[in-house]
Every structure is written in structure tokens, then in C-alpha cells.
């Protein structure tokens, strides 16, 4: 088949970029540099072997057959056999070494990019769409696999073959070399044009394949609406249109390759014709031997094939370069929230203080928090309430250092969180996000997210601590139940229980909770509520509250609005104040009565 990569103009690398990228690739490949050189050596040997064949045939004909020297002929045959054997042995080694180099490089790249992605702070994830990040780690890296498996080998081999073949031809006969090169300009011009056109055609095909797949997927996923409105015919017509467009783009790219390969085929035979015509004339003049002409006709392909291969691989290499460039951008991104070199352990217990904190999301115009101060003493339960978008969750996230404030200080036990070791921070202060997010694996695996070294007993204890032992025991494999993709095997309530058990496993001093708002059936609801209750007891808790019951249990309530902390006090105090909280509590009360 022909070129499989493609690169759009904006992705195309400049010469300087290409240079840095090659440099960095070599640096990353340092651990397996030896394998790399071995691979290179093997490629050299096999290339030489490929060229030696025709030269030996020439020698056999000229020095053996035409000179009537059986010894020379036999020698040529023997050497040829040896060369074939070497070509085989080194061919195998070259595959293994090259693949090992390439695949090891991809592995290192995968690990490095992923590690760096994980180090990034939340702000990075706000900026970059999840789909794009996943694509970096999968499609972009996989796009290089092809290159690694055979492309690189071909690229190097083709380049070397071209250079070697040229020198071999030159030493055999400069006159015939000129003849051989007569067709080259045509070949090179055609290859360059083909490389350019096929790149464009490829991008077009890729775009239309994407559109076609989306149309396909949309059709399948929206089939109920399509049928409900009896729009099958219209939808099929629309799909057919996109499908035909895809066909047209395929057809176009086939046409491009059609004339190119026709030209290549013609060029090859035409060059032989020239070789026979001019070469024969030179033989008559006694300038070259017949054997040389024969060797040249055999070697012509060693000159032409590489040009063709190089031009086709060019696109693949370019797109790999573009992919690498994007990956290196991730590797270069500095995490905003990172451990300070002189970081210290957080003290066991201490009050959590927010002092004059201002925070602005990168994308936002107005700060989400403006000069906010609040203190939570040891064992206190603070509820944050207020309208959507007021900044409750933001404040909670800052208290766990998921972001760093632009100004002001968040401290625990007197230590600025920015000066704390990440490890101690995550042990003391734990955020339990709204919905229980589950990873592939068993429930146990999911709990170990919180503490990777937890023993089975510790896990059982954590589940017991939130009173969920019985519930999970009813599942087919208990805690070893596979939760399937995103925990689809479990109910929403069960997922929340897992989230709470995770927190229990860490056994932190401070819990930051964003109260779940999803609706559960009343039975599970009560269970989750109880688990939460158990988890909160004896800890400092900051909870973003959506329920009256939660707020009533809190020691203090902070009402957050756009201006910052609007009201602060106990439930009774705030009700008495009859301000914003008063109104909110009244509304809650009303819906409770309906209950």
C-alpha cells in the first residue's frame, strides 16, 4: 500500500523544531542507545548485502563466464551464498533490535507523558479537554508505532540504499551512472508532487472518514428519535450523502496514486531501455563490459525504489514529528500546584485557616473568590451554603490545595499549604467529590485508590467504619465485585458509599465534602446519609451543603455569595438574623414539609 500518514500545514514542523525534536528523542532514547546502534549496524550490513548481489552477478559474468574462468565463477557463487546468509541473519537481528528500540522508546514516552499529565494541577485539566489528553496518550503515540515497526527501518534502509547504490554504480562505471540518473529528475519531481498531493488527499480522506463515522454513530445512538419521527428515509439519505463524499475522496486519492505509480513503472522500464541502448553502444565502443550493463539493469531498482519509498514515508515521518511536538509540549508544561523543594510535613492536627484569599480561574474574568477569610478549628463542622456559582466548591478546593490562591494564604496548623509535602497534605485533608467516580477493577481496587498500601483488613475496617459492610456483602463477589466501566455495575448510591469508604480508609483529620446532589432511592439515601454521619464524626469537616439536615448538623454556617462570605454563624444565629440564610432555610423547610 502507499503512504499512510499525513500532516496538516499548521502541524508541519519548522526546521528548527524538527532539530530540537530529534535531539530530544535521542536523549529520551539514551537508555537503549546500545540497541539502537546495534540496529543501525544491522541495517548497514543488510543494505550492503542487498547491493552486493548484483555486483557479484556482474563479477561472475565478466570475470567468470566471459573470461572463461570457472574458479572466479565459483568464487562469486560462494560469496553470493555467504551474502545471502548474512542478509538473512542480520535481517532478523535488525528487526528485533529496531523494534526493541522503537517500542521501548514508545514505552518511555507513554510513561513520561502520563506521569507529567498526572503531575499537572487541576487548572491544566480545566484548560485541556479530556478527549484531547486521551488522544495524546493513545492516537498520537500509536501513530508512531507504525513508524517504529517498519517505517523507520524502511526510512533508514532506503536512505542508505540510495547512497550506497549511487557509490557502487559510480565505481562500476561513471558513464552508465549518468545514464541511470537521466530518469532521476522525472522520478524525483513526480515523487515530490505525489508526496504533496497525497498528503492533501489523505487529510481529506481522514476528515471525511471522521465525518462518516460520526454520522454513523449519531444514526445508531439517536435511532429512537429517528423512528419516533419517522425520519428513517431522510436520515438514510443524509448518511448516504456523507458516505458518497467519503467515496469521492477515496477515489481522488486513488487517482493521485494511479498516475504516480504508472509513471514509476514506466520510469523503471524506460531506464532499462536507456541502459540497453546507451549501455550497448558503450559496450561496442569498449568503454564498459557487458557484465557492468547487466549489473546496472539489476541495480536500477536499488536506485529508484528508495526514492519512491522515501517520498511515501515522508508524510508518515512528518506526522510522527507533529505528534511528538504535541507530546513534548505536555512534557514541558510546568505544574502550577507542585511540591515546594523545602516542603515540610503538615502537623498532625491544627486549625484550617483561609486568610485574605483571592482566586481567579484562568479562563474567568471575575475572581471566584475575593479576599475571603475564614477559620475552621479542630473538630469543627462548617457548612458552606449559597447560590450556584457563588464559589462554595472553589473555596472547598482551595482548602485542599487543588488550586493555589493568587493572593492570600491557606494554612493548616500554621503551615502554609503551599509549603506542605503533598503526601502529608493528602493524608490530613481529603476531598470527597460529589459523585463517586469509580475506576475499572474491583471495589477493593477502587478503595486502594485512596491508599495503595492498604491491607485487606484495613479495607474491611474502612467499609465497616461507614457501616457498609452488610451492603457490599450482598453483591455477588462482595468487595471483590468487578465494578465494570465507570462502576456501571453499581447503583449511584453504592458508588457514593465507595467514595465515602475511600475517605474512611485514609482516615484524615479534615474532610472536605461536596454534598452529592444526585437523586437516590429513599432506602439507599438513608444508608449514604448514615455512612456520611459516621465518617464525619470526630473530624474537622467542611461541607458544601445542599440539604437542610446537613446544615442543621453543622457547628457554623458560612453563606457565600458573589461578594464573598455574606453571613457567618450558627444555624440559630443566622435564622435570627433573618437575612439570606433565613430565606434559604425557609425555602428548605417548605420542601421538607411536602416530604
Amino acid at each position: 500500500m502507499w503512504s499512510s500518514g499525513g500532516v496538516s500545514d499548521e502541524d508541519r514542523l519548522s526546521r528548527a523544531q524538527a532539530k530540537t525534536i530529534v535531539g530530544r528523542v535521542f536523549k529520551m532514547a539514551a537508555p537503549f542507545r546500545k540497541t539502537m546502534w546495534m540496529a543501525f549496524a544491522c541495517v548497514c550490513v543488510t543494505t550492503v548485502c542487498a547491493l552486493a548481489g548484483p555486483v557479484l552477478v556482474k563479477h561472475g559474468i565478466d570475470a567468470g563466464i566471459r573470461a572463461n574462468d570457472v574458479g572466479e565463477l565459483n568464487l562469486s557463487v560462494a560469496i553470493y551464498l555467504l551474502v545471502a546468509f548474512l542478509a538473512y541473519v542480520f535481517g532478523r537481528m535488525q528487526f528485533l533490535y529496531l523494534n526493541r528500540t522503537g517500542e521501548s522508546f514508545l514505552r518511555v514516552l507513554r510513561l513520561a507523558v502520563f506521569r507529567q499529565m498526572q503531575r499537572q494541577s487541576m487548572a491544566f485539566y480545566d484548560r485541556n479537554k479530556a478527549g484531547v489528553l486521551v488522544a495524546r496518550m493513545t492516537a498520537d503515540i500509536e501513530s508512531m508505532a507504525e513508524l517504529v515497526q517498519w517505517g523507520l527501518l524502511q526510512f533508514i534502509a532506503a536512505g542508505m540504499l540510495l547512497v550506497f547504490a549511487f557509490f557502487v554504480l559510480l565505481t562500476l562505471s561513471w558513464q552508465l551512472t549518468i545514464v541511470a540518473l537521466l530518469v532521476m529528475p522525472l522520478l524525483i519531481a513526480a515523487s515530490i508532487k505525489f508526496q504533496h498531493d497525497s498528503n492533501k488527499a489523505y487529510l481529506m480522506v481522514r476528515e471525511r472518514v471522521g465525518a462518516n463515522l460520526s454520522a454513523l454513530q449519531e444514526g445508531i445512538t439517536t435511532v429512537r428519535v429517528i423512528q419516533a419521527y419517522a425520519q428513517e428515509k431522510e436520515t438514510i439519505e443524509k448518511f448516504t450523502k456523507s458516505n458518497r463524499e467519503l467515496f469521492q475522496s477515496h477515489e481522488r486519492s486513488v487517482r493521485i496514486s494511479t498516475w504516480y505509480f504508472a509513471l514509476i513503472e514506466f520510469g523503471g522500464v524506460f531506464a532499462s531501455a536507456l541502459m540497453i541502448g546507451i549501455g550497448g553502444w558503450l559496450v561496442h565502443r569498449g568503454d564498459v563490459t557487458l557484465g557492468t550493463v547487466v549489473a546496472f539493469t539489476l541495480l536500477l531498482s536499488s536506485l529508484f525504489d528508495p526514492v519512491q519509498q522515501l517520498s511515501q514515508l515522508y508524510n508518515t515521518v512528518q506526522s510522527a514529528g507533529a505528534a511528538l511536538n504535541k507530546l513534548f509540549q505536555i512534557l514541558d508544561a510546568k505544574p502550577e500546584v507542585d511540591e515546594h523543594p523545602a516542603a515540610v510535613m503538615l502537623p498532625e492536627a491544627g486549625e484550617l485557616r483561609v486568610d485574605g484569599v483571592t482566586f481567579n480561574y484562568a479562563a474567568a474574568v471575575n475572581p471566584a473568590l475575593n479576599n475571603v477569610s475564614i477559620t475552621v478549628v479542630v473538630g469543627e463542622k462548617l457548612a458552606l451554603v449559597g447560590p450556584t456559582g457563588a464559589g462554595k466548591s472553589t473555596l472547598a478546593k482551595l482548602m485542599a490545595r487543588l488550586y493555589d490562591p493568587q493572593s492570600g494564604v491557606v494554612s493548616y496548623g500554621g503551615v502554609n499549604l503551599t509549603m506542605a509535602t503533598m503526601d502529608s497534605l493528602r493524608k490530613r485533608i481529603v476531598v470527597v467529590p460529589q459523585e463517586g467516580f469509580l475506576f475499572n477493577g474491583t471495589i477493593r481496587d477502587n478503595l486502594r485508590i485512596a491508599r495503595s498500601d492498604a491491607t485487606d483488613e484495613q479495607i474491611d475496617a474502612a467499609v465497616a467504619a461507614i457501616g457498609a459492610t452488610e451492603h457490599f456483602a450482598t453483591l455477588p463477589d462482595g468487595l471483590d465485585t468487578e465494578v465494570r466501566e465507570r462502576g456501571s455495575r453499581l447503583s449511584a448510591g453504592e458508588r457514593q458509599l465507595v467514595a465515602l469508604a475511600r475517605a474512611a480508609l485514609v482516615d484524615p483529620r479534615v474532610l472536605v465534602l461536596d454534598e452529592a446532589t444526585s437523586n437516590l432511592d429513599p432506602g439507599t439515601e438513608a444508608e449514604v446519609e448514615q455512612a456520611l454521619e459516621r465518617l464525619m464524626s470526630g473530624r474537622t469537616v467542611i461541607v458544601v451543603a445542599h440539604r437542610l439536615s446537613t446544615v442543621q448538623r453543622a457547628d457554623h454556617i458560612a453563606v457565600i455569595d458573589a461578594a464573598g462570605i455574606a453571613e457567618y454563624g450558627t444555624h440559630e444565629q443566622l435564622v435570627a438574623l433573618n437575612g439570606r440564610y433565613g430565606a434559604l432555610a425557609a425555602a428548605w423547610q417548605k420542601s421538607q414539609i411536602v416530604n
Partner: protein
Amino acid sequence: MSTIETDSEVATRLEFEQEQRSEGWKLLRAMLKVQRRNLLIGGLIGILWASFKVMVPQMTKYAINDGIEKDGPLLRWAVIIGLLGVLTGVLSGMRRYVAFRESRWAETLFRERLFRHVIGLHVGYHDTAQTGQLMSRASSDLMQIQGFIVMIPITLSNVLQIFAVTAILFITDPVLAVVALIPLPFVNLSARRFSHRIHPASIAVQAEQAQLANVVEESVSGIRVIKGFGAEQVQFEKLEREADDILRESMKAARIRSSFLPAIDVLPALGLVAVLGVGGHRVLNGQLSIGDLVAFNVYLTLLIWPLRNIGMIVALGQRAAAALVRINEVLETESEITDPAKPQSLPTGGSQTLGAVKFDHVQFGYNPSFPVLSNFNLSIAAGESIAIVGATGSGKSTIARLLLRFYDTNVGHVFLDGVDVRKLRLRELRQQIGVVFEETVLFNDSVANNIGFARPGASQQDLERAAKLAGAHDFILQLPNGYQTIIGERGFSLSGGQRQRIAIARAIIADPRVLVLDDATSAVDPSKESEIRDAMRTVMSGRTTIVIAHRPGTIALADRVVFLDGGTIAAIGKHEELVSSNERYREVLASMEHNAEEES
């Protein structure tokens, strides 16, 4: 997201494929029959090409023997070879074009057939079918078939080329021919075995890549959990495992390549060695000319590619056959809900209102042994509006689905204007019923096309009228491109309430006899809902409407309330009556309201 296969699943799948191959070959043959003509043309071109191609070395031989060795007309030979170059060039281009065009065309038509079929399959099928599976039928499986078809003309010319070359070699010098050809069958054999072995290996690599993709995906979407617990290391170790797996499987594949490809490359060289050795001696003994020796060399190189290709096409064919079996499975599935053989038509009553709905002793369960509805009887007069209230899972949405004939009842009948829905053409029935589904599904398209979905080509006025009635017009004007704004998954993202209002407009514009609103305003802000409610009154007046709702304000829009409990109608009446008389009704309403509060 593609479905992930574990290693053992891959193994069983490959086994399964093996079993189904014979069936696949049969299907493949049937399919090729349809394209016979063009493929034959392609093959013919290929055969012509091969004939000329084979002549090149022959001419080279004459040129050497006659032109160079004997001072003959050198120029003439050179010109002949050059002309052959033109012919082979043009023919190889044509062969390539026909092969690719034909294979792409087959793929294109097949995909259309598949899409048409899948879109027409009953909803029950789609309940259990996985999107990813259907997608791979229409993409990767079709690719396998395309990859096979494209090889057919080339294979035909390859076969000819092999026969012709072999014949020429034997005519020139049978002894040398035997010696030179000995290594070549091994090229074919190796190519065949290679194709067989590399396929499962690359599938294994893909499976590992998919597993890694999964880890990445969950790590990115679950980043808050990971950051919250400092679980970066845990995820990193998972990823490292998968990266190691990929490396391992890739190296397995590399080992397979390394044990076949260099051999395939080198084997022909053995033939060349034999030609030089044995042939050289024969020239020295005067049994062969030098020109023949050179021609032998060239001919042998002409055999390499055809032998390789033919080796691979067997494996390609087997893969295509397996893919075809999977595709055929879908195509053979027949829709359980189809147009009746002798369709009746709906009454078109001049001045009188239409849209009477009747459920008559209906029993239905998605699994017939567990009925969701049983002995369900409900008559709705034309133009009447009723509200259906019931706990989650009580079967409210099921009622709408039965009316649309997404499913057929197990027992009993559903009538629209006195005609059993099973006696109506699906298109006619469904055009008269506008449903706003519980889960709002919008298309990746402009707002205008989304609203006008049921009536392509609706005027801007109609669109705006529907949007106004659904309370959507104002916010649509606020969108970056107004009615032309692209929405949906990949377009501008709307809030849940906004999406619902567009879905309502979509139902309104169809101007159906029966309008079903399945919790259609659940995500709409209560303040906005009252606005919509006023508009809804206009839409509902004179039109049969079924409203599934739990907010008292919305329920109040209906003339009657049907309270669904335990799979059947527990009570019917006015909202106030039910609230005061039915304790269970109060309970259900309260619990649903409570859930909804928490959602907002």
C-alpha cells in the same frame, strides 16, 4: 469508546472466526458475483499488464544476445523496451485504479446497506445492541473486505505472471528453471504463514492498546479523585503495567515479523545464486547464452512479489470472510416491528378533532414473563389532555413507547383513532404522534435543523412559531449564530432545560394528533416552566396530549390525571381529588418532588 477485549476473549474470538470461515467464504463468493463484471475488467487489465511485463526481460535478452553481443540493431530493441515501458505503466495504473475504485465502491454500498438496515431495526434490538459493535461492523469489518477486494485484480495478474514466467523459464532452459525455482515456493509458503500468524499478534497489540487507553481515559476523567487522594502513583503503576503489556505484545509481533520477513526477502536471492552458479556453468559449457542467463535473473525478480502477494491473499480472504459473517449477522436480523401486509389508513375527519387513543387490556413486559403493564385500559378522547403520574419505574414511559409502536403489546391492543396501531404503516402512525422523550437527544446540527427534524424544509416562520411555543425562541436568538448555531455533542453546549425546550419545539412542529411529553420540562428552571406552561396551553388546546409529570403546576394542565401504580391504573381523576383522596398518590408525588429538588 471501543470495547475492550481481554486476551482470553481474543483467543475465543479467533477460534470462533475459524469455525465460521466456511460460511464466510460462501458469502464472499456471493458478494463477488455482484461485482463480477468490473472485477473481471480489472483482472483483464492486470493480465495484459502481466503479459507485457513478462516481455520486458525477454526483449532485454534479445537486446543483449542480438544487439550487444552480435552488433545487431541495438536501437530497435531499446525502442521496443521503451514502448513496453509505456504500456506496462499505463496498464498498471489502470489496474490499480480499477482495483481501488471497485473495492471502495463495494465498501461504500455495503456501509449504506448496513446503515439502512440498522436504522430500520426495531427498538428492542437497539436496547441490547452495543453501539461500538455496530460501529466496528460498518468500519473495521468493511475495511477487511475492502482490503480483500482490492487484491483481486492484482492476484489475477499475479497468477498469470507466475504461470507465464515459469513457462518461459522452462522453455529457455528446463534444468536451470528447476534449480532456480526450488526456493520460490517457500516464499509463497512463508508469506502465507506469516499472514496467519501476524494477525492474532496485531490484534493482541490492539487489545493492549485499548486497555491502556482505558486507564488513560479514567485517569483523565477521574482526575479529581486522583488529586484528592494523591493517587497519582496508583494510576501510574496501572499505566506502567499496560505499557509493559504493549511492549511485550509488540515484541511478540516483532519476533513473528523477524522470523518471516527476512526469510521472504532472502529466499529469492537463493534462486539468483543458483542461476549464477548452475547457469554460469551451463553458459561455459555452451548450453545457454549469456542473454538467457541475464533474463533468468530478471525473471526471477519478477516472481518475488506475485508469490508474496498470493501468499497473503489467502489470509486476507479468510479475514474478509470472517468479517462478512459478522456483518451478515446484523443484516440477517429482521425487524420485529414492521409495516403490516395490508395496511389500513387513519381516518381523516374533516371538521371533527382527531387523535383518540385507546389502550385495551394491554399487557406488556420488556421480558414477557415480567409484565410492566398488565390489564391496562385507558381511553383518551380526541383533544383531551391527560397527565400520567407514577413512581419511577412504574411504566409511564412504556405507555408512550407502546403508542409509538416501539414495542408490540404481549396481550391487548393499542388504537389510534379506532385503528389498531399494528394495522397502520409505521410512518403514518409515527407522523401522528409527537413524543418528547425523557432523555433529550439532539443532533449535531443547527438549531433550525434540530427543530425542523420531523419536517425537513419547514419555513423559518414555522420554526420560530414552534420555538416560541416551546419557550425557546428567546434563548436561541442569544446563541452565537441564532437558529444556525450548531448544537449537540460537538457543538455549542446548552443547559438541560434549553435542550428540553428544543426537543419540545421539535415535537410541536410535527403538528401531530397526539403529543406526548415525557417529563419534558424536568430540567427547566421552575420560573421558566411557568412561562412554558402558558405556551403549552396553546399547543395542547384541541390536541390530544399525554403529559408525564410530577410538578403540580404541570399536572394541572391536564383535564384528567391517571395514577399508575403496580403496572396498572390505580386511580383516575382531577389532581385535587386525588391529592385529597389517595394517600399513595400523595406519597409518590412527594418523593418525586423531593428528588427533583435535589437535582436542581
